[in-house]
C-alpha cells in the first residue's frame, strides 16, 4: 500500500488526494494518514512557503493567504 503510494508520488506531477484514494482503493482520509506517516518517516518532505517576514513591506501581503493557501499545497519528494 505505502509502496504503491510512493511509486505514484515518484512518478511525479500533480496528485490529488481523492484521485489517489480511488487508485489505491482506500478512503481519502487514509491517504492523508499515510502521507503524514511517510512524511514523519522521512520519505517525503512538506512544502512550506516562505511568506511571512519577507512580505513586511508589501501592502498586498495578505493576498498570499489566497494565492499561497499553503495549508492546501504540499510538495513532496520521494
Amino acid at each position, binding site marked *: *500500500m*505505502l*509502496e504503491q503510494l*510512493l511509486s*505514484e*508520488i*515518484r*512518478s*511525479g*506531477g*500533480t*496528485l*490529488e*488526494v*481523492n484521485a*489517489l484514494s480511488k487508485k489505491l*482503493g*482506500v*478512503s*481519502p*482520509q*487514509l491517504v*492523508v*494518514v*499515510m*502521507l503524514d*506517516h511517510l512524511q*514523519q*518517516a522521512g520519505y517525503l518532505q512538506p*512544502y*512550506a*512557503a*516562505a*511568506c*511571512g517576514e*519577507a*512580505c513586511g*513591506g*508589501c*501592502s*498586498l*501581503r*495578505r*493576498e*498570499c*493567504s*489566497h*494565492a*499561497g*493557501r499553503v495549508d*492546501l*499545497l*504540499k*510538495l*513532496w*519528494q*520521494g
Partner: protein
Amino acid sequence: MSECHEVAAPVVSVAVGTPLIALAGQPNMGKSTLFNLLTGLNQHVGNWTGKTVERRQGTFRHNGREYCLVDLPGTYSLTANSPEEVVAREFIVRERPQVVVAVVSAAHLERSLYLVAELLSLSAPVVVALNMMDVAVQEGITVQPEVLAAALGVPVVAMTASKAVGVRELLDVVEGVLQGRVVSSPRAPEIRADHREILRQIETLTAAFVPAPYPPDWVALKLFEGDAEVTRMMEAALPEEKRAALQALLREHDDAFLVVASGRYEWIGRMVRAAVTQPKIGQIGLTERLDRWAAHPIWGLFILAGMLGLVFWVTFTLAAPVQDWMDERLIAPFAEWVGGLLAGAPAWLQGMVVDGAIGGVGSVLTFLPILVVFFAAFALLEDVGYMARAAYVMDNLMHLMGLHGKSFLPLFLGFGCNVPAIMGTRVIDSWPARLLTILIAPLVPCTARMVVVAFIAPIFFGANALWVSWGLVLMTLVMLVLSGMLLNQVLFKGQRSAFIMEMPLYHIPNARTIGLLVWQRSMSFVKKAGTAILAMSLLVWVLSYLPDGDLNTSFLARFGQLIEPLGRWMGFDWRLTVALITSFPAKENAIATLGVLFGNAPEAGLSEALAASFSTASALSFLVVTMLFIPCMATVAVIRQETNSWRWAFFSVALFLGLSVAGGMVTYHLATWMGLG
C-alpha cells in the same frame, strides 16, 4: 495495600489484586476525557520514572469492584519514535495490564486504528472504545460497532465520553473480559506473504536471546521494521555471530518499514471498508460532480480562464462606474474646495496640496472600488474552495508542458505578490535552477500590476477592457510557461517531484470571512496610499514645480525629456515615461504620477485627461510595459537578499527593462500598423 503500579513514584494506594487497566489512544481522541470521567478526584499526576512524560493514574469502582486505571501517553504508534511511545509500550510489555482499552475516534477511524494494529501485534488484551460517536454522526459517517468488532476480533463499545454515553457498557465489557465471559480472538495485521519467511528467520535467530518479558514474535517484527530501541536491545543481547547474521538479514531488506506499515494500512483499509459507511450525498457528492469539470485537465483550464475573465468583467462592470464617479464627483470637487480654502496661500503650497497630494493620492484612492471588487471576487473564489482547483489545473498544465513542480509552486505564490514567490524558491535544492526561477518569478502578474491594468484598460478600451486585461494576463503567463519550459530543459532534466493537494469541499461562502479579507486588504492599500504613495506623489510634484513653477520647464520635465527618446520607441511622451519610472517603488505610483501630472487638466477627471492625451496604441504599449517592467523595489530587494548578490539584482532589473522595452516597442508598432495609432 499495595501501589497501583510499580514503576511509578508516589501513587494512589489500592488493595492487592486490584485489576490494572491501561488507557491507550492517540492524542485528541478523548482519552483524557474518559480518564477524568472514570477516576474523578481519585487520580494522581506525576512523571514516568526517568522521563519527562506525564504519568496519570487513578482508581474507579464498577459493580462494587475497584480498578486501577493508568492513562498511557497519547501516541500514534508503538514504534520508538518518541519517549511517549516507548513509555506506552514498555508499560504494556512490562506491567501486563489485564485489559488495554484502546480509545479510537469513530470520526477518524483511519487515523486511530494504526495504534490498535500495533496493540494487537503485541498480544495485549484489547477492548476498543469507539469514542466520538456524536462527531461521526454530525459528519454523516456511520460506523457499525458490531461489524468492527467482528473484523477486529476484539470487543468494540460505541461511546461518547464527552457526554458520558456508553461508559457503563464499556466497563461491563472490561469486567466481562476480566471474568472470562467476553472472549477475544484478535485478527492482527499480517505482513505480505513474500516477507513472512524473512520474518520467521529473524525470529528463529533471535528468539532464544530475547530478554523477558518481551514477546519474541513482537521483537522479531520490531527488528524487521527497524525500531531503534529494540534493535539496540537485541544488539546487546545477541552473541557476536548471531548479531552479524541479523544485521546481514536486515540489510537485505531495507524496505521492511514500508512492508510492515503497508500491512497495517491494508488491514486498516479492510476494517474501514467493513465497518464505515460514508454517504456520498450533499457536500461530498456535489464536490465530486463539480470537480469532474473544475479539476479536469482540459475543461478545468477553460473554467479557470473563464473565472479570470469573469473577475475582470465584474470588476469593470461594478467598479469602473463608481471609480469614474469618485474621480469626477469626489476627488475633483474636493481638490477644488481645498484650492478655494488655500486661495490666499502661496502658489507652491496650493500646487503641492491640490496637484501633488490630492492629485496623486486621490487618483490612487479612486482605485479603491476596483480593489474592493477585485479582492471580493478573489476572496469569494477562495472561500468557496475554487482556488485549490485553480492551482491544481495550472500545475497540471505546467507539468504537462514539462515545467518542474518545484519551480511552479513558488511561482504560484507570485500571483499575490512576487516577494514570497522569490522567498519560496528556497525549496529548490540546485542553485542554478533556483536562480533561474528567481529570475523568471517577476513575470507572474502580481495583484498590484493587475490593479494598474484594471485602472487603465477601461479608460482606453471601454467595453473591450475585459479582453485587453485578459489578454495581458495570458500574455505574461505564456511568457512564464515558455521560460519555465526552457528552464526545465536546461536545468531540471531527469529530476522529478510531485505535488500533492488536498482539495477542500466546496461550500457556501461566508460573508463575514470575505468581508474581513476585503477589509484587511483594502485597509493595507489605503495605508500604503497614505504613506509610500503620498511621499512619491509629493516628490513628483516638487520635481514638477521646481525651479520656476512651470511643469514644462521643471526638473521632472528636463529629466523626462532626457529619457523621452527611449519612451518614444514605445509610443510614450515624457510624462508616461516618468510615470513608468516612478512605479519602481510601488506599481500603483504609475497612476499617482499620472494623477499629479494631469491633475491640473481643467474640468475633467484623470480618465478623460488620459484618454484625450494618448492614442490607443500608446495605451496598449503602456499596459504591456507595465506588466513586464522592472520588478518593484521590494522584489528587487528580496532578489538581492536571496541571491546574496547585487549583481543578480541588477541583472534582473536590466533583464526586465530590456524585456519591457522590447515588448512595448513591438506592441506599439504592431498596434500602429493595425491602425490603432
